[in-house]
């Protein structure tokens, strides 16, 4: 479904991605793990059209989407829930979600998306009229994920959905990610919490300072001594 080949990305003279290759198949959950500053957010930013790539190719369903602007990618079915949530603080929960469905013309489909998101996150339904900026951190995270689902994406990009959440909520969010995937959405997931990330994913990539250091089935990576040592807090 998604294929990244030899992707290079620069911020000025900082070489953030040094020729990475990633593939995500239809219906999969793929995790991207790596330490701080490895280039995970940059990878998702490059896919979503936020960060210009200087070399290499990104294809989605066979179409070249390298450096296509973000709003066109949403129409094609790629949706990003960004690092740090980035909800619209002075808009209500409902308005935030409505914006998620901005590209949809069909009112019935939009209503169905609202239903689905409120089913997944009943907490949001109780707070439709509340300003997003006044939600708790966890609620904002739910809103960010819900908002990214409103356009019924084929591919959902999640950048650290569990960041700053209490352990019980982290488990909840991961359960939801699996639910969303079962409902037919392909997911590319970034996580600091490598344990969780590897437990829900079918395959995973390990990013180290801008290059893919390892990749393979998530189950195998989870028991790999190098991964254990670096990312799983080996004992």
């Amino acid at each position, binding site marked *: 479904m998604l294929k990244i080949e030899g992707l290079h990305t620069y911020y000025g003279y900082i070489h953030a991605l040094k020729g990475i290759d990633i593939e995500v198949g239809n219906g999969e959950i793929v995790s991207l793990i790596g330490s701080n500053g490895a280039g995970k957010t940059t990878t998702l930013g490059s896919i979503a059209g936020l960060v210009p790539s200087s070399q290499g190719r990104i294809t989605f369903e066979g179409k070249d989407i390298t450096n296509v602007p973000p*709003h066109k990618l949403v129409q094609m079915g790629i949706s990003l829930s960004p690092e740090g949530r980035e909800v619209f603080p002075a808009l209500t929960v409902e308005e935030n979600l409505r*914006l998620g469905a901005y590209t949809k013309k069909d009112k019935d489909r939009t209503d169905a998306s609202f239903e689905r998101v409120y089913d997944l996150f009943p907490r949001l339904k109780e707070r439709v009229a509340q300003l997003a900026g006044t939600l708790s951190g966890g609620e904002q995270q739910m809103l960010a994920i819900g908002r990214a689902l409103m356009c019924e994406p084929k591919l959902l990009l999640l950048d650290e959905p569990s960041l700053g959440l209490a352990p019980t909520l982290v488990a909840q969010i991961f359960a939801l990610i699996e639910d969303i995937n079962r409902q037919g959405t392909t997911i590319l997931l970034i996580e600091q919490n490598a344990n969780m990330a590897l437990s829900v994913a079918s395959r995973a990539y390990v990013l180290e300072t801008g290059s893919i250091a390892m990749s393979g089935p998530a189950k195998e990576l989870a028991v790999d001594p190098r991964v254990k040592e670096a990312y799983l807090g080996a004992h």
Partner: protein
Amino acid sequence: MVVFIQQFINGLAIGMAYSLIAVGFSLVFGILRLVNFAHGAVYAFGAQFALVIFVGMQISIALAILLAMVAAGLLGVIIDKTALEPLRKKKSMPIANLITTIGISHILVNLMTIYFGSQTRGFPALFSFGMIEVAGVRVDSNQLMLCLVALILMGVLTIVVQKSKIGLAIRATEQNTKAASLMGINVNFVISFVFFLAGASAAIAGGLIASHYRIVFPAMGFDAGLKAFSAAVLGGIGSLPGSIIGGLIVGVSESMAANFLGSAYRDSVAFVILILVLIIRPTGLFGKKAIMKV
């Protein structure tokens, strides 16, 4: 007392027109955090364009002003596309954008001088069904309609921004451009739309003010632009109700000052008030606490 009320009403009428210019400063500032100093020139263009096609095409002045609205709206879009968008793409410093708008303002005034002539020209009255007189206070038909048209337009603008889909996109883009683009919003289109709204409302203001004073000239946008800008800041830049209140305060204060202090004070009183308000309330009367720009 009659004089006071009379001046108050005169001030309100002209103040409503200032509000219409102020709202353009406010809208563009909201979305780009940029004071568009070319806005006054767009206002002047609107008024003069209306006059030129009124004379040239032999149409009614009301229709001429409507066409001028579209033309000035497009002029706003062209300014953004040719000069400001390239700067944004290069992520240039805010000061560069600001200087650019000042430069554009002068270029436009020069072009208007070349094509429309530098002289002050007469402008027809938009409405003339006499005047209303109550207890010695007179309101002429132009003033009345000026208030009415401006109020209706402000109402329409408020509905567009608060209730429509594109309005929601405008508010989202104001708060977080990057997140807005991730929603599928074409941010550059939203910015163009805002420039169009700003230009169109400036042209209406231009037509209304020109038919009030019955004159137009290329540099008419400098003073009006500065006053409208101070009205926007006074009311709280980025806030629509703020623009209305700010415009009215500027209009009334200048009308009062001209009458009670002498016409030499007319143009400075608004700024004295502006400075006082900003000392007491730095965000303006209706200003929000600095919106977080992520």
